């Protein structure tokens, strides 16, 4: 699918406007139904018993006392799940949902119960006796790599890992080109630094929740908050030995995900309890369970070597990245290693990534997984070198910026991209030259994300009265129903109000990949446009039939079929509504379809700028002003594009300043609540200004690029660079919490 050649000059009528979202009223009145808002007749409440130990052998589980409590209908442990063959990916997910031989982190599920009320379930949970043999644990990435560190699993390292390393090191990745030694030799200065970031949680406000039902015939229904109902279906079917077509998954409205709801935690357990009890089972996590047992992102430790000439040319970039992704293989270090230097056009670049397991919860994707930590390291190093030479940090980035034709550090050659445009706009923006007060400093940094396309399936139904339904299969996590309706209206030439987009369950539409990789507006949008084109072809055919002319003598314009070409004759145009009204007489209902495994998502770049004030007495960092410059390709609904820019920037601010997983000496999480795991609140922040650049993505008919993830990539370094400018101290260890900043100031 290529960009329409006309697209750069195309005048859009609906795309680019800001209509009201169709689910708005439901969501401001409390009517919208989220994961925990569903009930079923005869429903039981399910609860999970979790390991209090960071690492322990499970010697025996005695559930008899719990089962004897009146009102308890089912108890499950790992013994109630089938043994998974050699599919490590599914086996790890099952083991994470319900521990097997060992509990691998504080909060790891070891048993679950379904009872007629929450109170009975809570009481019965306490009667499950688990006999643990506590084992030594490790939660820090560098400690876990040391020979002699407590080992989680033997034999999980793949062939990329050299002999002799700790068994906790499970994969190694390498990217790059050129000759680092030669590049560094050409530098006027080489900077070597180590940077560390702590794990942060996606922090969606809606805890995981689901409602499962299963009959003895194997037909099952599952309602849950997820970023992908098909992923839930396929994963649960594999874990429980069900047929995909027998398990229907309906996605509730979703109260945030940011990647954290791209896997399953409760769902297979709820289905197992429903199967065993013969009753519907509802499960809802507490906040503490969300923090202890779902997927935060990885923590990282990164070494950088960066060479620069005194006029600001980067001669070589090297990064060694170590990410721990919790108790199972799969930290996002590969994406970190691929993205670290992606914004720059470098002759000599190399990255090495190490995937490491520790006694922490299995990480899940978090908005541009793996990229923010890598960008923190690289963008901090660039800033430090540029400042050392007295160079303008935006000019240095412009001098090294990747552009069309640049060979990226991870191997691809870029088509048209928007990095330079964001940098130039940043330089021209009044924010860049606004005066600063004492203890205040300004920082900038860039960020990159790949974006994704993937499996996508869309249907479009034309109702007899000429209104239109778009049927798509991706949960609406931030206004995407509106964007789909807009693209459908644009393509059909009708008004936005005539289109309503709904989200199908897994039985009602073909497979759609999860809402991730910023793929929905791009890939589902593309499929919506193509489904509309399919419907238009059918409508032109119907008009041709009515007019008694050839199909190819009809064209679609402004919401109507028109005769076109020398042999068409003259007929008054037939509108969509007129064609729909007589569909029964011209061949039956009219619908459009499109299925694709979409490619060409179009990479995305951003530049962020921040002013901070550092309190020299307390070390507290205040965000005074923040501006996001990002390429959206084409902003379909600019208000929701701005919302993605703002939301990602603020999650990055939290990551930079406050948020962290804090583990005690016993390996248990010390801050499993929103009081102590502190995400940014309204009074911490200024308005977040946004500048949308539109460099069309050649891979989408309207030029759309994904916008959701890139915005979390630059903030960590942007803020660290501003803190350095404000206070003179270079923070290489996140979060930049007041005690750490104060200690750095005192030590400086």
């Amino acid at each position, binding site marked *: 699918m290529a960009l329409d050649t006309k697209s750069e000059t195309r005048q859009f009528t609906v795309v680019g406007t*800001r209509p*009201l*979202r169709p*689910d*708005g*009223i439901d*969501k*401001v*009145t*409390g*009517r*919208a*139904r*989220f994961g*925990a*808002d569903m009930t079923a007749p005869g429903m039981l409440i399910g609860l999970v018993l979790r390991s209090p130990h960071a690492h322990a052998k499970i010697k025996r589980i005695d559930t008899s006392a719990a089962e004897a409590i009146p009102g308890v209908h089912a108890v499950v442990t790992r013994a109630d799940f089938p043994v998974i063959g050699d599919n490590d990916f599914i086996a790890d997910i099952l083991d994470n949902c319900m521990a097997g031989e060992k509990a691998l982190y504080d909060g790891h599920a070891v048993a679950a119960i379904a009872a007629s009320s929450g*109170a009975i379930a809570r009481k019965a949970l306490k009667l499950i006796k688990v006999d643990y043999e506590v084992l030594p644990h490790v939660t820090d990435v560098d400690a876990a790599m040391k020979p002699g560190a407590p080992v989680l699993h033997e034999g999980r390292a793949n062939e990329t890992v050299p002999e002799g390393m700790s068994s906790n090191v499970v994969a190694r990745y390498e990217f790059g080109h050129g000759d680092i030694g030669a590049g560094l030799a050409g530098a006027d200065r080489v900077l070597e630094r180590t940077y560390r970031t702590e794990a942060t949680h*996606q*922090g*969606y*406000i*809606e*805890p995981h929740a689901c409602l499962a039902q299963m009959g003895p015939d194997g037909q099952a229904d599952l309602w849950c908050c997820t970023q992908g109902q098909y992923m839930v279906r396929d994963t649960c079917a594999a874990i429980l030995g069900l047929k995909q077509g027998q398990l229907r998954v309906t996605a509730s*409205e*979703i*109260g*945030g*995900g*940011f990647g954290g709801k791209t896997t399953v935690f409760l769902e297979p357990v709820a289905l197992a309890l429903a199967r065993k009890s013969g009753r519907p089972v509802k499960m*809802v996590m*507490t*906040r503490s369970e969300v923090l202890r047992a779902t997927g935060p992102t990885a923590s990282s430790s990164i070494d950088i070597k960066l060479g620069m000439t005194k006029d600001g040319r980067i001669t070589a970039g090297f990064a060694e990245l170590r990410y721990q992704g919790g108790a199972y293989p799969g930290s996002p270090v590969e994406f970190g290693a691929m993205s670290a230097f992606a914004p720059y056009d470098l002759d000599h670049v190399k990255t090495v990534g190490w995937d490491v397991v520790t006694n922490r919860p299995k990480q899940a994707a978090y908005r541009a997984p793996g990229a923010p930590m890598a960008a923190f390291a690289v963008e901090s190093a660039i800033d430090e070198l540029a400042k050392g030479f007295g160079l303008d940090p935006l000019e240095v980035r412009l001098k090294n910026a990747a552009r069309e034709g640049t060979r990226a550090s991870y191997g691809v050659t870029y088509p048209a991209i928007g990095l330079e445009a964001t940098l130039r706009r940043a330089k021209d923006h009044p924010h860049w030259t606004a005066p600063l007060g004492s203890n205040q400093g300004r920082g900038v940094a860039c960020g990159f994300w790949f974006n994704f396309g993937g499996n996508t399936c869309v249907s479009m139904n034309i109702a007899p009265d000429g209104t239109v339904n778009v049927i798509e299969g991706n949960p609406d*996590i*931030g*206004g995407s129903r509106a964007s789909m309706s807009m693209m459908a209206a644009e393509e059909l030439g009708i008004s936005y109000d005539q289109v309503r987009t709904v989200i199908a369950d897994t039985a009602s539409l073909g497979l759609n990949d999860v809402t991730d990789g910023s793929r929905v507006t791009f890939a589902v949008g593309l499929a919506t446009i193509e489904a509309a084109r399919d419907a238009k072809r059918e409508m032109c055919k119907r008009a041709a039939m009515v007019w008694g002319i050839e199909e190819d003598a009809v064209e679609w314009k402004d919401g109507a079929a028109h005769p076109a070409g020398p042999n068409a004759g003259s007929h008054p145009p037939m509108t969509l509504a007129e064609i729909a009204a007589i569909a029964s007489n011209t061949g039956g209902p009219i619908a459009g379809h499109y299925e694709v495994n979409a490619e060409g998502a179009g990479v995305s770049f951003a530049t962020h700028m921040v002013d901070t004030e550092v309190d020299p007495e307390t070390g507290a960092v205040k965000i005074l002003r923040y501006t996001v410059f990002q390429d959206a390709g084409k902003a379909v*609904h600019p*208000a*929701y594009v*701005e*919302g993605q820019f*703002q*939301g990602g*920037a*603020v*999650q990055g601010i939290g990551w930079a300043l406050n948020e962290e997983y804090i583990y005690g000496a016993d390996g248990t999480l010390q801050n499993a*609540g*929103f*009081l102590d795991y502190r*995400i*940014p*609140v*309204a*009074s*911490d*922040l200024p*308005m*977040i200004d946004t500048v949308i650049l539109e460099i069309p993505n050649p891979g989408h008919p309207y030029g759309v690029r994904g916008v959701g993830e890139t915005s979390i990539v630059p903030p960590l370094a942007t803020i660290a660079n501003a803190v350095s400018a404000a206070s003179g101290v270079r923070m290489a260890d996140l979060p930049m919490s007041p005690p750490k900043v104060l200690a750095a100031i005192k030590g400086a």
Partner: protein
Amino acid sequence: MSRIHVTTTINGDPVEYLCDPEETLLDVLRDRLGLTGSKEGCGTGDCGACSVTMNGRLVCSCLVLGAEAEGAQIATIEGMAKGETLHPLQRKFIEHAALQCGICTPGILVAAKSLLERNPDPTEEEARYWLAGNLCRCTGYDKIIRAVMDAAAEMREAS
């Protein structure tokens, strides 16, 4: 354990229920009365998703016992629109795209309404501090604050 009989008023409607002594008002609203517009983001008073007013005072319903509602006037998100007419805050939230996922929205609307009843002309900073107990992870608060300020301006003009 015997249940407690409670007679109260919710969004103007007389309501009676039986609840356990340790049951929260949020659980009563959601699980006994089917008023699932109030959300549970934490259950510990830290997120504001469960915000309701009790006798005009903004509270986290997860920190109030169901039994404490005896004789009280409770207002929840379900009572905010009057028939087909949305409250100006509700309308402005949609117009300003002040919600992405919408899970925080009911609590923030209840809290913002409570602010404007006390202070019809808040500064941006006052609005930010009043809403500091309501977490939103999606929006970065920018559009929420704009929607609140715009609704306040419209309500001042109308009154």
